[in-house]
C-alpha cells in the first residue's frame, strides 16, 4: 500500500528521470489506501464529491488534488492502479491513441477472466455493460506520461458512493469480483495486466522482484 501523495511524488521524480533518459519506460502497479482524487478541473471535480468531511474522516478517506486529466475518482484497497511512466515519442504521440490503448489493456485483462468488456463512446474507461470496471486519468508532460489507470479487482464499491465517479452520474461501477461473483486474486489480475500492457504497447515487460508489485518495460 502506498499513500497517494508518496506515489505522486515518486511519479514526479520518475518523470524527470525518464525525461533525462536515466530510466527506461516504466509501469508501476500500486495499491492506495482510501483516497479520493480530483482532476485538474478541480472545481468541477469537487462538486462531484458527495460526502462531508466528517464522513470522509470517519471512513479514513483522504482527498487529494492530482494534476491528472479527468474528474473525480476513488482509489483504495483491492484496486490495481497503474502508472505508466513512458516517453511516447517518437511514434506514439497521440493522446487519444494512448487512452484507447490503456482501455485496450483493461478490456483484454477482463477477457482473461471471461468478461466481455467494451468502450462507451464519449465515456473514457473500460466498461462491462453499463458499469465502469476501469478508469483512466492521464497526465502528459512533453510526451512523458504519468498517472494512468485504475482497475477494480475486488474494490469495496461502497466507497464510490462518496462521489459521482468521474462526474458521470448515470454510470455504475463494478469490479472483477462483483462482475464474476467470485474472488479474484490480485496477483492474477496484475500478471494479466502486465502481459497485455506489453502486447498493446509493444514493449517487452521485465517484471521486477515484487515488493509492492510493479514492472519495467522496454
Amino acid at each position, binding site marked *: 500500500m502506498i499513500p497517494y501523495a508518496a506515489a505522486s511524488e*515518486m511519479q514526479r521524480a520518475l518523470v524527470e528521470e525518464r525525461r533525462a533518459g536515466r530510466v527506461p519506460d516504466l509501469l508501476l502497479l500500486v495499491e492506495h489506501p482510501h483516497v479520493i482524487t480530483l482532476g485538474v478541473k478541480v472545481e468541477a471535480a469537487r462538486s462531484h464529491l458527495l460526502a462531508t468531511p466528517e464522513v470522509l474522516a470517519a471512513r479514513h478517506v483522504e482527498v487529494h488534488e492530482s494534476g491528472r486529466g479527468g474528474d473525480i475518482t476513488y482509489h483504495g484497497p483491492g484496486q490495481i492502479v497503474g502508472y505508466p511512466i513512458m516517453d511516447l515519442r517518437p511514434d506514439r504521440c497521440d493522446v487519444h491513441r494512448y487512452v484507447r490503448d490503456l482501455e485496450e489493456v483493461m478490456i483484454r485483462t477482463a477477457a482473461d477472466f471471461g468478461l466481455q468488456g467494451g468502450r462507451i463512446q464519449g465515456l473514457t474507461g473500460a466498461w462491462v455493460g453499463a458499469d465502469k470496471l476501469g478508469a483512466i486519468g492521464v497526465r502528459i508532460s512533453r510526451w512523458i506520461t504519468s498517472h494512468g489507470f485504475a482497475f477494480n479487482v475486488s474494490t469495496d464499491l461502497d466507497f464510490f458512493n462518496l462521489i459521482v465517479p468521474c462526474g458521470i452520474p448515470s454510470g455504475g461501477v463494478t469490479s472483477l469480483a462483483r462482475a464474476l461473483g467470485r474472488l479474484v486474486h490480485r496477483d492474477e489480475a496484475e500478471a494479466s495486466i502486465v502481459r497485455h500492457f506489453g502486447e498493446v504497447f509493444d514493449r517487452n515487460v521485465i517484471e521486477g522482484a515484487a515488493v509492492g508489485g510493479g514492472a519495467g518495460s522496454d
Partner: protein
Amino acid sequence: MAKQVVMPQMGESVAEGTIVRWLKKVGDPVERDEPLFEISTDKVDAEIPSPSAGVLSEIKVKEGETVPINTVVGVVNETAEGTVKSKPEAVSAPDAARVAPIAPVAPTAPIAPIAPIEPVAPVAPVAPVAPSRPWSAAEARSLRLSPVVRKIAREHHIDVRNIAGTGGGGRVTKNDILAYLEAGAPVVALQAPGAAAPQAPATGAVPSAPLLAPNPLAVAGLDQGKYERTPMSVMRRKIAEHMVMSKRISSHVHSAFEIDFTKVDEIRKAKKQDYEKAGGKLTYMSFITKACADALKKVPIVNTSVDGTDIIYKKDINIGVAVALDWGLIVPVVKNVDSMSLLEISKSIADLAARAREKKLKPEDVQGGTFSITNPGVFGALFGMPIISQPQVAILGVGAIEKRPVVVDDAIGIRLRAYMVLGYDHRIIDGAVADEFMQVVKKGIENWDPAQV
C-alpha cells in the same frame, strides 16, 4: 520577434483542447521547452512547452476556454539570447535515450521506487509529514545497485541514498561505495542508534556531534541547478532535532499487539449522537486515551522519566495526542486523563485538535505530557514504530482500524481490528512489563463496559 503559440494537435482524432491553466503570466520570462500552459482533452491533462525562449507577451485564450487545434492561444516575444540558445532539434536528445532501455534493466530498478517509502512509516510521530518528503530524482537513480554494492551497503549499514553515484545514470558503483567507506562515513553509520549518548541525558545536553550536521554528500557531484536548497521551517527543524535526540537518548524497543475494536465500535455508534449533543466527539482515540490512562495507573513505570540513574515517577497522567497539521505535527496534551470521564476526554481532544489547526494552542497545551499516542493509521499505515517524545519513556502508535477476517469460535468472522505498537525505553522498561501494559490496554478496549460510556 513575436512567436505565436497555438493549441497543439495532441493526436490524430483530437480536434480541440481546453486550456485549464496558464503556468506563466503575461510578462513572465519563459525558456524554450519550459511548460507554458496545461490543456485538457478526454481524460488527459497535458503540459505544453513554450516553442521558444522569450517573454509571454499576450494570452489570447483564457483558462477554461475550449478552442480548436491550431488556434493561437498566446504570443511569446522572443529574446535575442533565447533565439540563439534554442536548439533546432531539442527533441533529439531524449530520443537518443530510447536506445538505452534495450540493455536489460536490473530487475530491481522498477521496484526500487516502492521500497524507500517503507522506512518512512516507522517514524510515526513524523509520519504526517514524512510521506511528503520529496522523493528526489537522485534517489530513484542511486537505487539501481549491483549485488556487490548491495552487499557492502548491507554489511556496513549504509544508506546508499547518501552516496553520489558516478556510474551510468548516476548509479552507485562499487568504487563509489568503497570511497564512501574510506571517507569515514561508516563510523557514524555503525553506531547503534541508542549508543551514541548513554551518559548525556543527565544534563539534557547532546554529545558533540550536532543533531542536524552539515552533509556535504547531499550535494556532492551535483551541479548547481540540479537541486534546490530550502531551509527547514522552524517546526520542521524542531521535529528533526527532537527525533534524532530521542533516538540517541532512549534505547527504543517496540512491541505490537492486535486489538479488537468491534465492541468499542458498537458502543461508539450507539452513543455517538448523545456525545455530539453534549459537545463531545466519540472517536476511537477517546477510547484509546482512556484505556491508556488506566494502563498507566496499573503499570506506573511507563509514566516516568529518566534523569541520570534516577527514575522520576510522575503523579499526573497527561497524555499527548499527536495532531497532523498541513504544516507539520504538534502534540497537544490532555491533562489528568485518569480523573476524566470518556465524555470529558473526547471533548478535550476535540478542543485541542481544533485549536491546533487554528494555531490557537497556548504553550501549556503542549507541555507536561507523560505519555504519547500517535496515529499513523489515519494515513493508511498498518502500524508504525513510533519514536518516543522526550523526556517520556513510551509512546503508543495506533495503526489503521479496519475490518479483518479473524477466527472467532472456530469460524471466520469479520472483526474491526487494529495493530497497536508500543515504543518504549528499554533502559527502564523490560519487554514483559511493556506487554503487561499493552495487555491492560487491550483488555480495556476489547471488554469495554457500555455502562462506562
